């Protein structure tokens, strides 16, 4: 029995020891919590930040482990190499590491050289320039001057955010009117800042133009032949504008897509697909006439969400005319709230913008990195534009008449 007791004691002790072993986890810190200034630390905080916070690993082919193997020694070497120009070399490395990412909202902004210089790299924009259908944005003057003068009935209303800088796409510009010789309402705007301007207490020009649009909708609800929403060159903006613009046209809440959020540190830790909605607002009307949305390759982000909202419009009379859009859908938000997305590193000097979720359209397709395909393709034609023919607008008018 004594041999048995010794054996039993040994077995129990080993078992108890195994089960009491506290497991150690090598959990990486948040990128904001790396305070070192060496290139080694910069790389670690950056690589871990992307590893844990990028929302699109499920659809992205970037081999992030291979990137680690390849670039960690290079960044370590930068600490050893004391020659001038190391920051520029580091910037080149960042560009190489990021250039394959599919997220259209991913861009790096890095201050260097004692904060005197800024490096900015946006893979999505570089990818856009390589598209065979790439062209420069249509000059804003076309929407400010040519369209109102040639295509709208007198009495249109336009407004700028910054009257002193009307030629910049950074200024918010809105024009509301009626297509000449028709009862088709027309709205152009170059930035999704509509809700915020409309709800300001002062009578700013943008607000007045938007009020004109709303008044047209309400007074011509039964007599209008349709609505054209022109968002060419519009790079996006506030998500609240979706309901302000499209939710205003329906009393029916409907789905235009689905979003999936990260819920853990693992690249494939995702929650369920969550429906994304267009919701009516308190002043909503039931707009039963055709809606044509005109977009181009520079239509991005919130604009692309709006293309899907029009395609999915409950009346079935929404149509998208123009070109395939930019290819960025998800929003940008802090990663504590959303479980993924943008972060700062290098003691706050650098920031990496990233989308906070993965998105698929109501038709089940993921258009991230590709863009919404139009229902009716009308390529950009600079010669036609120079000769006063806006082929994309003409087609939108034609589509509205056909659907009516």
């Amino acid at each position, binding site marked *: 029995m004594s041999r*048995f007791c010794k054996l*039993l004691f040994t077995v129990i002790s080993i078992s108890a020891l195994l089960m009491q072993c506290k497991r150690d986890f090598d959990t990486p810190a948040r990128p904001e919590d790396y305070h070192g200034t060496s290139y080694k630390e910069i790389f670690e905080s950056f690589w871990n930040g992307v590893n844990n916070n990028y929302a699109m690993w499920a659809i992205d082919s970037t081999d992030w482990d291979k990137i680690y193997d390849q670039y960690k020694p290079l960044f370590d070497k930068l600490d050893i190499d004391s020659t001038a120009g190391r920051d520029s070399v580091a910037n080149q490395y960042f560009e190489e590491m990021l250039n394959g990412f599919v997220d259209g909202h991913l861009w790096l902004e890095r201050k260097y050289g004692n904060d005197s210089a800024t490096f900015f790299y946006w893979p999505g924009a570089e990818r856009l320039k390589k598209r065979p259908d790439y062209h420069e944005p249509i000059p804003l003057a076309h929407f400010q001057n040519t369209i109102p003068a040639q295509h709208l009935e007198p009495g249109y209303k336009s407004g700028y955010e910054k009257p002193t800088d009307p030629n910049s796409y950074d200024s918010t510009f809105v024009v509301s009117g009626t297509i000449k010789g028709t009862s088709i309402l027309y709205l152009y705007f170059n930035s999704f800042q509509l809700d915020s301007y409309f709800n300001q207490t002062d009578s700013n020009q943008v607000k007045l133009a938007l009020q004109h649009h709303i008044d047209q909708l309400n007074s011509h609800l039964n007599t209008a032949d349709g609505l054209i929403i022109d968002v060419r060159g519009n790079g996006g903006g506030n998500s609240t504008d979706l*309901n302000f613009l499209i939710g205003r046209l329906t009393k029916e809440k409907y789905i235009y897509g689905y979003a999936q959020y990260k819920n*853990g*540190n*693992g690249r494939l830790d995702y*929650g369920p697909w969550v429906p*994304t909605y267009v919701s009516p607002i308190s002043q909503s009307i039931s707009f039963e006439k055709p809606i044509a949305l005109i977009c181009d390759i520079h239509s991005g982000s919130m604009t692309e969400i709006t293309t899907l909202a029009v395609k999915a419009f409950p009346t079935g009379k929404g149509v998208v005319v123009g070109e395939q859009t930019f290819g960025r859908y998800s929003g940008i938000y802090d990663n504590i709230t959303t479980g993924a997305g943008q972060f700062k590193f290098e003691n706050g000097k650098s920031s990496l913008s990233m989308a906070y979720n993965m998105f698929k359209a109501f038709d089940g397709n993921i258009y991230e990195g590709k863009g919404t395909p139009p229902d009716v393709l009308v390529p950009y034609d600079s010669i036609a534009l120079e000769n006063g023919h806006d082929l994309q607008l003409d087609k939108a008018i034609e589509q509205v008449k056909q659907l009516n």
Partner: protein
Amino acid sequence: MLFSCLLAFKFTCIHAQLKTGVSAGISRNYLETDITNRPFTNYHPKSGFLISVPVKYSFNNWLAAEIDLEYMQKNWELSRSGYYSGVYEKATNHYIQLPLLANFSFGSTHLKGFLNLGAYAAYWGWGNRKGQLANMDDMIESIQSDNTMFDYYFPYRYNEAYQFNRTRDRRMEWGTLIGLGLEYAITENTYLTLEGRYLYALSDQQKKYMYRQIPRYNETYSLRVGVSTSLNNILK
């Protein structure tokens, strides 16, 4: 190693006995991992259900070998706190399990205490996740307060089957176990058991698919009540 040691013993089979029965009880599972880098986010243990069919062969009056065919739930919850209160996900995981153990008993004929030591293999069969999150694409038009995310966004509630991910998820789990219990002889051939058992997973729930991957292990406590009967009279 355990069974090699046991096989080194010379047994006398005077009291050899084959028993089987059924036991059922509750499980309490802890998901051991680390998400301290995710603010306001924690994992919590959850209870579940188990049912087991043990087959036990007693070599003598103090040593037996047992194998169980078992169904066990190993559940957990992920939830957020503070401003993010109300965001949660409860995971229900259904395992088919085969514990293999050595049973050491002590006491009288009618009432015995026992110690179980062994190992187990488990197969993740299916799962379900139920939860709530703030739908950031479903905004509340009129904000009334600013206490939680749900003052700004409508909740999205879900209750769906978990989709097994072949890249990430591992179906098989194995580990060690230890149990302590009591066995009471109701009649000469029928026994009532009460056992507390602890399972310690040695395998990660996930396959290794990325660098800096944080592993996840189940640690499961259970309390079970069972009844068993001797098959010796039937087998003679």
